[in-house]
């Protein structure tokens, strides 16, 4: 059923229809134009200037070239990928594992589900300071346990050690965002009809075969979605890293979003900051194309 008469516009003149549509869509158009299009165009514009704020001088692609030839650019890109992939995969493992538990739980399933909402809703600031406390060098519980079990000789400064800073941030991030994977997987698990398993059991399928042939195929879409969307979001994360390490020590946790902030706000190199933001935008566009082509997410609203 097409929508011209769906909306009951049959007895109205064409022009009034048009006007109505425009009036109703005005907030949406205004929102995207002012809060997205203008800033994005401005970002791209600034990226071609040196000192775009005070004394703009057109420099062509110089900012981009300066960023890409910087020795550390590939390193920061690698850090971003490392952070995104490790947090996403580990969140998926935690979320999937726990969703399987909750889905099978005979009792207490509902309260376990409620429990998982807390990490999801707690602000990043809270999560970060909780983990800074847990991993604190002097009083942290983790150091105390490691010392008591004799695994270490003296307390570790987790967020300040080159080898451990990234894993520590990843742990705190998985704590918060594992619940995202949990809820998506759980929703998909609960949508699998029980009869599938009953029939499989009648036919003598083993536990493993049931997981492989029924559960897993039903979760494939959810798993792809989590890997892709959560991966993109983690690649973009600024707050959790900034609040824990500011990108240190010795820039082992400096990712591209941290670098954008460094350029634009800390160093006042606005042209460089916006050029790097534009590069991130291009990378995101690639991720977006994969998302649209691979998962066809808009099919739900455009049928």
């Amino acid at each position: 059923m097409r929508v011209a008469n769906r909306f009951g516009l049959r007895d109205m003149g064409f022009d009034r229809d048009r006007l109505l549509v425009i009036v109703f869509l005005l907030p949406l158009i205004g929102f995207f134009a002012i809060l997205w299009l203008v800033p994005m165009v401005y970002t791209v514009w600034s990226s071609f200037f040196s000192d775009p704020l005070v004394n703009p001088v057109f420099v062509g692609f110089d900012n981009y070239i300066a960023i890409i030839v910087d020795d550390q650019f590939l390193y920061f890109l690698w850090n971003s990928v490392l952070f995104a992939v490790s947090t996403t995969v580990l969140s998926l493992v935690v979320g999937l594992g726990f969703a399987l538990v909750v889905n099978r739980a005979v009792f207490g399933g509902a309260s376990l589900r409620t429990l998982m909402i807390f990490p999801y809703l707690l602000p990043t600031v809270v999560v970060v300071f909780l983990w800074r406390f847990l991993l604190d060098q002097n009083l942290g519980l983790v150091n105390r346990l490691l010392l008591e079990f004799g695994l270490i000789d003296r307390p570790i400064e987790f967020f300040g050690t080159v080898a451990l800073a990234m894993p520590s941030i990843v742990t705190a991030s998985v704590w918060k965002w594992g619940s995202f994977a949990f809820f998506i997987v759980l929703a998909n698990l609960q949508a699998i009809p029980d009869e599938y398993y009953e029939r499989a059991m009648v036919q003598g399928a083993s536990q493993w075969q049931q997981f492989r042939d029924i559960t897993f195929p039903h979760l494939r879409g959810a798993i792809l979605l989590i890997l892709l969307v959560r991966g993109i979001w983690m690649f973009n994360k600024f707050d959790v890293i900034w609040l824990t390490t500011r990108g240190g020590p010795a820039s082992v946790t400096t990712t591209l979003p941290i670098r954008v902030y460094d350029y634009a706000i800390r160093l006042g190199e606005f042209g460089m900051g916006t050029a790097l933001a534009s590069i991130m935008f291009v990378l995101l566009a690639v991720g977006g194309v994969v998302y649209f082509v691979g998962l066809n997410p808009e099919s739900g609203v455009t049928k």
Partner: protein
Amino acid sequence: MFERLVGGPGGLVPNAVQQRLSAVALYAIGALVLLFVLTPIYLMVVVALQSPQTLFSGGELTLIPPTLTLNNFVTLVEQTSTVSYFLNSVIITVSSVFLSTTLAVVSGYSLTRFDISAKTLVARAVLFSYMVSPIVLAIPLYVIFFRLGLLNQYVSAILAVTAISAPFSIWLMWQYFQNIPIAYEESAWARGASRWRAVRDVVLPLARPGYISVAIFSFAVAWNDYTMVKVVLSDESLYPLTVGSELIFQEVFIGWGEQMALLFIISLPPFLVAAFLQNYLMQGFNLGHGE
């Protein structure tokens, strides 16, 4: 090899054993995840409610407090800007939730009920914008608000936060309206109701669970936000709790007890949402994949 071990009839590991193994594995995973999730939350509560005297008595953190006290909260209220930061958080969050939800309802309704040829394009723009890095958006917004002289006004924080919460809200509401059959409205029109009355008396009540979900998700984004506000506000007296807490933690008289008490205060509204409104949250996950 693997298949011979755990396959169906005739597999080397009988199904009864497999069932038991998977049950044991599931309970082990469950226990580990529970410990992982609960420990930080328990510590926060236990440390927030202890006085410094009992907290580190004996040189180690006291995990089961002998006495509880609200002194840490009193210190925060009397000697820091906690209360004004909290009010700022409320002002920014409430305004942003209102804007984001209203925008989502109007847009969601028009996108489902009108014949718009560019729906795929709009859907992609919406999805794409909610994947953009907040920091990438915050930087140009900062300059724009600076030029407009808004860096020391709530409105810049409210707009910046709405910019990142609205795309998902629109997406969710759009999906929700998609599931409300047009027939309800048509029968209202058939009985002589105007379009506006049909929307007010038929569509909006039906869409209620949808916009409550949307409001909760926008609440979660706004209450949680650090990045946008940190960049677009320069006046410290307007900071919400998330950004303001960093300033409070720098004070010399703030110890672990006060820190955890402040985290507890920030967590309180999300706790309440989780306790009383979780079904709406679940619905959001099922429809729109969360945020």
